[in-house]
């Protein structure tokens, strides 16, 4: 870790020509975020005759990951939403040159004195703020749905998919992942994919920014019940905003009791908050399709993580654990969602 901290300090000095005596301390890897290696650290320097210090987050590409996307793609989302009514950490530097830290990375502000763990939502001092956190969570998702990707600089008009084709594009994308990575036949996810193809959803009411992994566990909240930052934008894309709503409602995020969506709000209340904030409607037909799609996408990710571990491309035990445990629960959730459990 000392070597990485020293190398990072040299990089930071290169990016801050006015800074003197740049050094990094307290560099520590953060567990989770299996798609990229994530570190927190404190950067110290002198500038204008004064001592300065700032907490930073370093996100470095791993040798293999759950989700393979370009780091510039994720960085652009932070740039687009900072600052706005969608809270995100301030993005600072994007570095593609591997000579600094062996692999590409980006750096952003560390939002301090926060928690992100799913389990913490049920424990003091956060549990008493569940309702407030829940309302805010789906309000922010509504704000993402409302945002204009062209104004944000995330898309040109020609990039916007046909509203009637959003579902097909995403389904094809994740079916390809299952095709490529399944370690054996997967009858449940195949049945769910066929169900989705047989009854397409209505066209998107509007095409917007889709976060792609909007769920409890992927935002920072504090002890006062505030959501301070939405994280993990690596799967953002343009599409039907209902995709994010469906993903956020996956029963996996509230397993095993499933009383509250994302361990925060009753499902219907979450949908109502999102509708009010986004100005869009989540009809029963459309949201059912996107909830089942979310289960398929989730299964594709768990299948892919199991493959990464099985092939030896990653030694991260979390990838093995999700393949063993979470994928099985997600299969059950798929059967329930298809009305085939009992």
């Amino acid at each position: 870790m000392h070597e990485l901290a020293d190398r990072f300090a040299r990089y930071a000095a290169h990016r801050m020509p006015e800074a003197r005596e740049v050094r990094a301390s307290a560099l520590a890897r953060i567990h989770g975020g299996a798609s990229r290696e994530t570190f927190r650290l404190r950067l110290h320097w002198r500038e204008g005759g004064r001592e300065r210090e700032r907490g930073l987050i370093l996100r470095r590409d791993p040798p293999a990951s759950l989700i393979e996307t370009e780091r510039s793609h994720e960085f652009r989302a932070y740039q687009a939403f900072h600052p706005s009514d969608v809270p995100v950490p301030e993005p600072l530097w994007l570095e593609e040159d591997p000579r600094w830290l062996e692999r590409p990375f980006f750096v952003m502000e560390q939002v301090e004195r926060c928690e992100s763990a799913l389990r913490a939502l049920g424990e003091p001092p956060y549990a008493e703020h569940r309702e407030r956190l829940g309302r805010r969570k789906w309000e922010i998702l509504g704000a993402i749905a409302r945002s204009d990707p062209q104004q944000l600089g995330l898309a040109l008009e020609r990039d916007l998919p046909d509203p009637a084709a959003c579902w097909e594009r995403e389904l094809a994308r994740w079916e390809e992942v299952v095709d490529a990575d399944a370690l054996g036949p997967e009858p449940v996810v195949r049945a769910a994919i066929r169900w989705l193809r047989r009854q397409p959803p209505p066209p998107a009411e509007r095409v917007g920014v889709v976060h792609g992994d909007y769920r409890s566990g992927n935002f920072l909240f504090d002890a006062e019940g505030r959501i301070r930052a939405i994280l993990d934008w690596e799967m953002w894309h343009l599409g039907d905003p209902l995709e994010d709503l469906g993903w956020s409602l996956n029963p996996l995020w509230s397993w095993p009791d499933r009383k509250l969506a994302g361990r925060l709000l009753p499902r219907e209340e979450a949908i109502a908050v999102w509708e009010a904030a986004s100005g869009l409607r989540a009809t029963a037909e459309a949201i059912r399709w996107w909830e089942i799609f979310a289960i398929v996408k989730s299964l594709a990710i768990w299948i892919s993580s199991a493959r990464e571990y099985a092939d030896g491309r990653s030694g991260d035990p979390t990838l093995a654990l999700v393949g063993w445990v979470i994928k099985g629960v997600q299969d059950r959730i798929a059967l329930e969602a298809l009305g085939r459990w009992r």
Partner: protein
Amino acid sequence: MKPQVPRTLQGLAGTLLAELAPRIADDYAQKNAAVVAGLLLVAAEEWDRAAERRVAEHAALRRLFAEVAPRVESAPLRERMEEAARGRDPGLRISLLDQENARLRGLLIELHEHLEGQPGDAARALEERVWAELRAEVERRAIGFWPL
């Protein structure tokens, strides 16, 4: 006698969680140790039932194919199902059983898709037999440990 594999793995998980992990100063490594302990518990649960689960599943799938095959309209699919229904497990090694498992479950997917394309109540009833098998598969694989 020696300690059984499940007891050994459970003991290792306990040692890792209670004795070793708390002494790891690095937060990332400590949490990774907890994940490894979780995997040991999962392996303990799976080890004892691994062969039985596969053998039981194969028997259930062969029964299903034998029952449904006469009513499958596609002749090539029917013949493959009849052949699979007559099959036997190649041994008790998990790697060998997994090869057979993949063959049978691949055929189950084909059967399911075929039935979905068939009209009528009879096809729906057969399809329900496939859904029942999918429920049973999920239950056979269920693991008591939950990490989130």
